[in-house]
């Protein structure tokens, strides 16, 4: 398997993690793409130095050949997979704590409990709260999303 194939598989795996595995669905929103656009600039700079100066060297037989900012084009896919996987895991862990999932998307709940230091330390970080309320899918769907539905019409 060449780097080209591996990089393609990594992108597919990252998308699967985001859309199916963790259901964070970052690629469907604009926060991710805005962030990625900024990160990409720095990636091209950093990777340009690493690959361009030959800190990392590539077997010509393992890559397609075209280079972007000094780095093999495959590195774009590699970086995308790394960033998406990271942000999906990060987002998933954030959602399952803080009582955000418990109080769901209600504005009141989020601003009062979700973001306050107190609420976070008391509800979010306690093991009990996390395992009982935060991570249960049931709680999330029953409490979290039903509130969302309620708060929408206002």
């Amino acid at each position, binding site marked *: *398997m*060449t*780097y080209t194939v*591996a990089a393609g598989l*990594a992108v597919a795996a990252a998308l699967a993690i985001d859309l199916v595995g963790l259901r964070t669905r970052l690629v469907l*929103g*604009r*926060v*991710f793409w*805005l*962030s990625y656009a*900024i*990160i990409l600039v*720095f*990636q091209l700079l*950093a990777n340009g*130095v*690493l690959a361009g*100066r*030959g*800190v*990392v*060297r*590539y*077997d010509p037989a*393992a*890559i397609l050949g075209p280079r972007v900012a000094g780095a093999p084009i495959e590195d774009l896919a590699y970086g995308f997979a*790394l*960033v998406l*996987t*990271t*942000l999906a*895991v*990060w987002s998933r*862990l*954030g959602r399952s*704590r803080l009582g955000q999932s418990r109080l769901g*998307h209600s*504005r009141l709940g*989020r*601003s009062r409990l979700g*973001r306050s230091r107190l609420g976070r330390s008391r509800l979010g970080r306690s093991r009990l709260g996390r395992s009982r309320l935060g991570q249960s899918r049931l709680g999330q769907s029953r409490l979290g999303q039903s509130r969302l539905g309620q708060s929408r019409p206002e």
Partner: protein
Amino acid sequence: MGTLTYLAVLAGCLACALWLEPVLRVGVLRQWRRLALTLGPVAAGFLAWDVAAVAAGHWWFDEEQVVGVWLPGGLPLEEVLFFLVIPLCAILGFEAVRRVLARRGAATGPSGRRGTR
């Protein structure tokens, strides 16, 4: 730059992103447990790929441009740091974008709702 090249690139990445923590108060470093739980598995996965790729000869590292601490699997120390630094920078950038969008109240997605404060 000699043997510090790779390390300098990583330091440059950190310098570009770390200021977001105090200035925009993204609170990423403060959530060190969530951060560790994110970086751990991601780094493990990509390091496994890295070791496999080095073993397969897809890429290798210039001995002249790393500090010279080599780890099992043929990876320089900097390569392990890479998988901690880059994801950290990505998270800082992501949270900064979210914070800015929320403050402006411009977003309409789920993240935008956070900006009501």
